[in-house]
Structure formats: C-alpha cells, structure tokens
C-alpha cells in the first residue's frame, strides 16, 4: 500500500539542494493540521474555542497568536481564523467546543500545504512576487496576511527566521517551481 503523499513531496530534493548555501532554506512542512474556524468573535462559542486552543482568536486584522503546543491561530477575516497545528491535531476538539452553536469548523489540512522560506534571503525571495511590505518593522512575527505570491493566493506567516507560505495544494507544484526559480540568484 502506497503512503499518503504531500503536495510538494516531489520537490523535496530540490528544496534541499537550494538550502545548502547560506542564503536560503526551503522546505515543505507536510501534513500539518489546518482548521478553518468561522464564528462570531463576540460569542461565547468563540471563547470556548479559544479555551480549547489555549489562545484567544485574534481580533486585530492580519495578526496571529501562538498558543502552547505549537498552535498558531491566524486571522483570516473578521469572523474567520486558520488554526495551524502539528500533524495529528484533532479538529474534532474545536468542533466540540463550537457545539451546536452557529459557526463552522472545517478541517482543511489537505487543502493547503505549508512551505518554509527561511534564511537571510527569505524576504528578498518573496519580494519577487509579493507586493506586501515584508520589512520586519511592518510584517514580523505576530502578523499574518492573506495575499498573493506570484500568481497564487497564499497565507503568509512571518517567523523569526523567515516565513511560512501556506499555499493551496493544487498550486503547490507551481509555487515550488516559482520559489526555486526565484532563488536562482541566491543559491548560486
């Protein structure tokens, strides 16, 4: 029986090769849990979900919070969040927290994959295709954005050493090719 396969699995070797120098680290972080949460932030349900997550649902647009156990909750819209959790996290926990109340908890783990773009040239690399100001003073840890990178829609999560690029699975190969091509000047 074949194994399950992540969307950018075929690019793993080339990501690794591009990461050999000092300038960049590219990798897919496969099989993370992604959960789309829609709920009125003022509702008790939102509080119950926050309790389960161990962090409040951030209400300030384009921000993200990190809870214990390596869970990031990113603002996607005024009543929409993306929970990014380690592999194996159970979206059911959140669905139970919501209960019968109005809102939605949808497991979208396989809808997008997570690409790591890190290293000293990470910002230069993304600037080839992202119109946001990625300067750390503007877009550092604690921020998040839904935007476009090249010709794909992405969720960007800045980290100390770079960025997580969450891209739709069907675009993963395109995104990988684009990143590797954009990296040409930074890896040779």
């Amino acid at each position: 029986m074949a194994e399950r396969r992540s969307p950018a699995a075929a690019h793993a070797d080339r990501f690794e090769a591009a990461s050999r120098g000092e300038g960049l680290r590219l990798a897919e972080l496969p099989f993370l849990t992604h959960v789309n949460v829609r709920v009125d932030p003022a509702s008790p349900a939102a509080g119950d979900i926050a309790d389960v997550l161990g962090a409040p649902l951030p209400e300030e647009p384009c921000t993200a919070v990190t809870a214990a156990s390596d869970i990031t909750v990113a603002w996607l819209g005024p009543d929409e969040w993306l929970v990014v959790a380690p592999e194996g996290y159970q979206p059911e926990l959140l669905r139970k927290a919501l209960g019968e109340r109005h809102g939605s908890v949808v497991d979208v783990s396989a809808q997008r994959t997570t690409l790591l773009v890190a290293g000293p040239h990470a910002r230069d690399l993304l600037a080839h295709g992202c119109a946001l100001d990625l300067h750390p003073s503007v877009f550092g840890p604690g921020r998040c954005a839904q935007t476009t990178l090249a010709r794909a829609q992405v969720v960007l999560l800045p980290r100390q050493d770079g960025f997580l690029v969450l891209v739709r699975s069907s675009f993963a190969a395109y995104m990988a090719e684009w990143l590797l091509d954009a990296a040409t000047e930074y890896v040779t």
Partner: protein
Amino acid sequence: MRRENGGRIDRSRTLRFRFDGQEYTGHPGDTLASALLAGGVRQIATSVKLGRPRGVFSAGSEEPNAVVQIEEPFPEPMLPATTVELYDGLVARSLAGQGRLATEPDPARYDAVHAHCDVLVVGAGPAGLAAARAAAGAGARVILADEQPEPGGALLGSPDEVDGVPGAEWAAATAAHLEGLPDVRVLRRTTVFGYYDDNYLVAVERRTNHLGAAAPAHVARERVWRIRARQVVLATGAHERPIAFAGNDLPGVMLAGAARTYVHRYGVLPGRRAVVFTANDSAYAAALDLAEAGVEVAAIVDVRTAPGERWAARARERGIELLAGHVVTAARGDGQLSSVLVGATGDGGRSIDADLLLVSGGWNPVVHLFSQSGGTLRYDEALGTLVPGASRQAVQPAGAAGGVFTLPGCLADGAAAGARAAGPHAGPHAAEAPRAAEPEATNAPAYWLVPANDYSAHFVDLQRDVTVADIHRATGAGLRSVEHVKRYTTAGTAHDQGKTSGLLTSAVVAHALGTSVAELGTTTFRAPYLPVSFAALAGRDRGALHDPVRVTALHEWHVAHGALFENVGQWKRPWYYPRPGEDMETAVLRECRAARESVAAMDASTLGKIDVIGPDAGEFLDRLYTNLMSSLKVGSVRYGVMCRPDGMVLDDGTVIRLADDHFLVTTTTGNAAMVLDWMEEWLQTEWPSLRVHCTSVTEQWATVALVGPRSREVLAGLAPGLAVSAADFPFMTWREADVAGIPARVCRISFSGELAFEINVTSWDGLRLWTAIMDTGLVTPYGTETMHVLRAEKGYPIVGQDTDGTVTPHDLGMSWVVSKKKPDFIGKRSFTRADTSRADRKQLVGLLPEDPGFLLPEGTHLVSTATLPEPPVPMLGHVTSSYRSAALGRTFALALVKGGQGRVGERLYAPVAGTLVPVTVTSHVLYDPEGARRDG
C-alpha cells in the same frame, strides 16, 4: 579624440568593440558614444526619412540622433549610443530608423521585485543625493534610484566642487555613506520610468548589460522594481534645449552641456574647433572647459545683446571671441559640420570654420514623472520652460527638475525636499545642505528659432526628420492643436519621445499661430520615460510560470501512465490515456467501452467543493439554485443548477447534505472560485442575516469517479465494510466508509448514466486510493474526453460547452430542475421576459447524422434547406458537442437549435466543408433514456 588624461574612465583596461564593421577600442567607464567620439566617428546613424547623416547630439538618455543596433552579444534594437556602457566584444551598427529583432529566443533572465520605502528619490545628482542624505539622516527608509552607473549626475560632467571636494568624489562618498545604512537602498543603472496612482512607481535596473558576453546567466539581466513610496522626491535634472536653425542636424552639432560631459566624464574631445551658440550663461562654462581641455573655441555666439557680465569677461580673458546679439544662421558641411554661418539676424552672415557647434537654448526640467503623477505643469516665462505646478500625489521636485539651475541651489533644494519628505522623522540637522560655490548665472529668455526665409533644414525633431517647414505645413493645413501637429508631422513620436524636441515643437507651433507656449501647451508625457524592453516587463511570468499549473494529487500517476492533458482553466486534466499505437479516437472508444461494459475510473478531483454550513444553509441554497435544496435529506445528494439574475445558466453540480446544517456543494472545474465568490457576494452584500458560512474544500478532497456495471464489485472489494447493493446504497445517496483502508465519503452519483460511485478521500490519500483501485487490475483509467462522450450520450450538458451565457435551464431541456414552488430564486424573474420566454429559443437537442459514420465538427451550424441560399444564410443553431459513440455504434451530436424541442424527428442540414450534411433532430438523451443502467 581622447584626452591625455582625465575623465572617469579606467585607462588601465582596453575594451575592443566593432561598429559598422570597424574595430575600435575604449575603456571601462565609456559609453558607446564616448568611445566612438574618441575614435573619431562622427556619423552614428542615418535619419529615418531624409537619409541624412546624424551624429552624437547629447550625452544621456535624451539622445535623439545616435541610435544604434546592437548585434552582439545578442541583437537589441535601437539603443542610444549615449546610454550603452561599453563592454568588450560589443558589436553594433548604425541605424536608419528601424531596429532589428533577433530571430532566436533571448536566453537572458529577467525578473521583478517589489519594494517599499518612506522616501523614493529619483536621480542621484546633487539634488537627489542631498535629498536622500537628508531623508536617511532623519531615519526614513529610502530608495535612491539613478540611471547612471555611478551617482553624481551633472557633477560627473563638471569640475564643480561640493563640500570642498570635487563633485564626483562627494557623490561617491555620499552614496557610500547611504549604502552603509540599513534601510537605504541605492539603485544604480536604474531608470524610474513610470509614475502611477497611489505613489506606485516602476523602475528598470540594467544589471548585466554592461558586462556583455561575460554577464552571468543566472543573474537577471534587467529587473523591474515595483516601488510603493510614501513620499517621492523627483531630482530628475534637466535636459538642455536645442535651437532650430538651418542645418542643425549635422554631425558635429551638439548640446553644450553634453560636450562638457564628454570632456570631464569621458576624457574625450568631441571636436577640435568649436563655435558655441547660446541663449544663456550655462554654455559659457562649456566653452571655457573645452578651451581648457584643448579645443579651439572660435567664438561664442550669444543671442543676447547683453550676456552675463562675469561669464563674458571670463570668455574674453580666455581669448574667445564673443558675438553678442548674434545667431547661427546655418551649420554647413558635407556629412559633418565644417563651418558655421553667424549673423546679426536672419539669413547669411560670416562663416567660421568649425567641426563642433555647441548649442544651448536653455534648460527644460525633466518633468515627465511629475506629469505622469498627475501633477500640473506651469509655463515659466522667466525660464522659458515648463516647471512643476501643483502636485496631486505625495511628490515634490528638487533641484533642476523643479527649475533650480545652480549647484548650491540644487543642493539646498534637495536637502530641504529630502527632509520634508522624511516628514515626522526629520530632525533639526537633517536639512543642512551640502555646500558649493555661489552661482554666476542670470536668467535668460527662451530662444527657440533662428528666423529664416527657408525653414526646410531647421530641424525640430531630429529623429523624425521634422523641420520647422513641416510644422508650418501642418498649421497651414488648418491644424491648431499641438497634438494634431504632432500627428501630422510625427514630431515627438520617435524613440526619444521628444525629450529634446517636445517643447521646441510647441514653441514653433505657437510662433506660427501667433500664440504662446503657455497658451498652446504641450503634448502629454506618457510612460515609459525611457523605452523598456518587453522582456523586462514580462519578467519571469513566462513558460511554465506564465500562469499557475494546477494539478491534482494524482497528477504524477497520470504522467507516469502516459496521459495526454487538457488545459481546463489553470488545471491540467488527463484528456485520455492512449496505449501504444492508439490514436485519440481508438483510446476514447476503448475507455468508453470500459465504462459502459466493465468499470473505469476518472480523476474528478478538480471539481470545486464548498462546505456550506449554518442553520440557514438550506434557505441560502434555495435562493441560489433553481431547484429546492432545503428539502434534501441528510445522507442524500441532489443535482442543481444556478442561474445569473438574467436567467442564464451560471453553473451546475451536486449538493450533498452532510448534516442538518451542513451541505457540500460541488461546482464545475472552471467555476469553483467564481461560485465561492458568488456565494460570498450574496451572503455578505444582500443576505447578511442568513446564518451561513462557506469554506472552500476543493483541494481537501481527492475525488475518484468509479464508473461502470462492475464498479459495485470493485468498490465492494475495496470497502468490505460498506453495504453496496442498490437497496443498501441507493442512487443519489452517500455513505462514509473505509475504502482501501482510507476513510472516505462515497457518493452514488453518475455523470455517465452507468452505475457509478464517487469516492472522496483527503488529497494526501488520493494517490493511495487511486493506486488501490488500479491495483485491482479491473479498472480502466479514463480522461475528460471519455467523460464528455459518456455524459453527452445521456444528454447531460457541460456548462461552458453546451451553454454560452445565453442559455436558460429550460433551453437545456431541464425545466424539471426549475422549481415552480419557490417564490423566488436568482434568475427566476428573468424567465418571463419577452425574449427569454419565446417558444423558438435555441434549445438543446440531439442530432444524428444520416451517415452514422460522419462526425459533425463541433461549431458547425444548422440550416433548414438542402441547398444554401445567398448569404446571409438563416441559421437555426449550432453543434455544441459531437462524438463517436461506442455504445450507440455511431456518431451523434448535441446542438442548440431554434425551437429544437419541437423539431424532434425533423431533418436539418449542416454545412460542412462545402456540402450540406443531412442530420435528424432527436431528443438530447440518446442512451438509456429510461435510466435503467444507473443501478447496475
């Protein structure tokens, strides 16, 4: 004629290049123009219309004359020789108006970068450097962009000092200081060429052009910078203005400031014996510098009767004859300048031998970007030129770009502009300006045109060969707008876009019409400021990266198994899977037979999928779909159609009810994003009170359609825990089960009319599921073509193929999907409009060619007569789908035909390649109309 020393060239290295077949040498730091001048080449190009010889006229990107073709290392058309940095191995040739494109693809790489800053300073001359220093000193994030390889601008072409050191040294030190700051970016060889809304500016950086064949292949040759700036300082300098007189196009006639640049920056003497023709003081500096460098300056011809006192005195001290109140009436020579006629006015006068004639009609601020930004321009009578007026964006001119023409003035203006632009960051020290010597200049009135009886050799636009006489002809023809004159004469439309000729054209027109330039205005300044290569603008959006290639989780398997692919929107979908020796027809017939007679599988993952959740989800879907969705039972599936408000079909798909408050909607492959947007639009803008949330899950799920009479058997084998009988698992229901050990949602739906199942697993598991299905050895993979045939045999339309935005559900024979109970749904009201309710609308029917082997081309039209009348021929409709059917043993087609549902049984004719093919109209359902096969 190279000077013994001086200039900012590296004399320790020699570069070899060829021009018009001749070998020449130059040095790093040269342009092609300076190296050719050093090599004694006077004619660089031939004029476009009259075939006249043309030489180097300027020292910058405003060059109208010396436009060349690069042949090696790679052909590039029409570059001003004044902007081509010299490199070893350059091969160029003179041009006569038209450039040449390479026949081979360009191997170079191009890219683009987004950048953000508090202050963008355009131009690294004295004003720009002062501005950048002031802004950066105040803590602003600064980008300084300059088109030259080294900063300094006009300082590079003069001996002037700043802060007590030579200007070029000061510029280099200032740039180095700026580059050392963390939030300052200095872009060399970078031309800001467009200024758009919301302080969005685009620039092109020429990164490896100057390296010639040595350019590293992995480095982008040109890079487009997309800059979003909080504030912009335009320190773009000024262009010197020519004067129109007879023969002013001869090689040897040059702008005065350019000659000065050749001497100082490139260590080149552009001639041996010069006459200077000026209307202002600035050309005196050029005359003195050239004389100092060894050029014999025969005379300064100053149109003013009273030139600036101190400049006049210095010229006389130097022994230069000063002819005040005089004009050059003609430049003469055979192929290049040999003498200059000088007179008090008008025609004729005294002849002075010269091979160089320096001209200065004054200076025009480079206001192109300011104008592009939406700022207004004001005609300044004192300066005789256009200067920036009111700005519409956060932009300010600085230095010569704003009409400040002295060095101390530019430095002070730049520093002040930089500090202002830095805004709240600005500290008290920020505005402190670099210092330079006091100016010695006086204002000069504009002077454009030397009067004459014959204006046929007074050139206004050198590159387009437009003379004053041509302009007079245009005004004589009745034209009164400078835009009309431009179009009549083509003035200003050449490669230089009228940088030196634009205002002169306006002046000549104004003169001819007895009005003023202020009154008349000029033509519009349009982007790009300089010509920009197509390739730079295309960047990396080419080939595979031109548009995203979307693939499913099964894509690698399809590739490995020889599928041919069809582009469906951005998706790559398997089209069919030919076996060795099979053509498409054979492969598709085989795939169809497998689906009808045995079992086949298709990757259906590209279908859009949307989770619709909330207590009002049913009500919401009732409003969007033409049929009733709220009545759907949990565990069931229903087909639905959505219309636009105008009643035309928008999309179709299945809706499954997962829970009371939870539906999963599928869309067509191409419309997934549109349908989600559609839902959000209605929810957010029209029905915010509906408690519904929509979430795309298109790629969460991989979907496999398992089709055919043996599909139940295959599924039963893979999902032992699932009761698969028709009774246990009825048509249009769904079940959860482990399939091949993978948690799956299985739907019993069919787009083929056969017994079929649609198996959904997470896309991570898609390949596992598919492999397990294929490992049974029973299942034939099939692609979109077979899917199309199977559904067409059943009369199922494909939105976008059998519909074109003018088709209602009724037209498709699907009145059954349009609820009569619901008071309203999107599109309902439109069905009763006069045209939408006509009985003879085009309706979907089946067609059977009378020759069962004849395949109607899709797109063929239908007529009612056995012979064709004269055009226009009345057309009844067209073939939307046409296939060979393995199941029917013949060809068939679907068509939209006027009143088609009433024509069943009629014979119509299809004009194909000159003959009329008889066809019979049938129901659009041709295969298993009773629906007997769907239960297997």
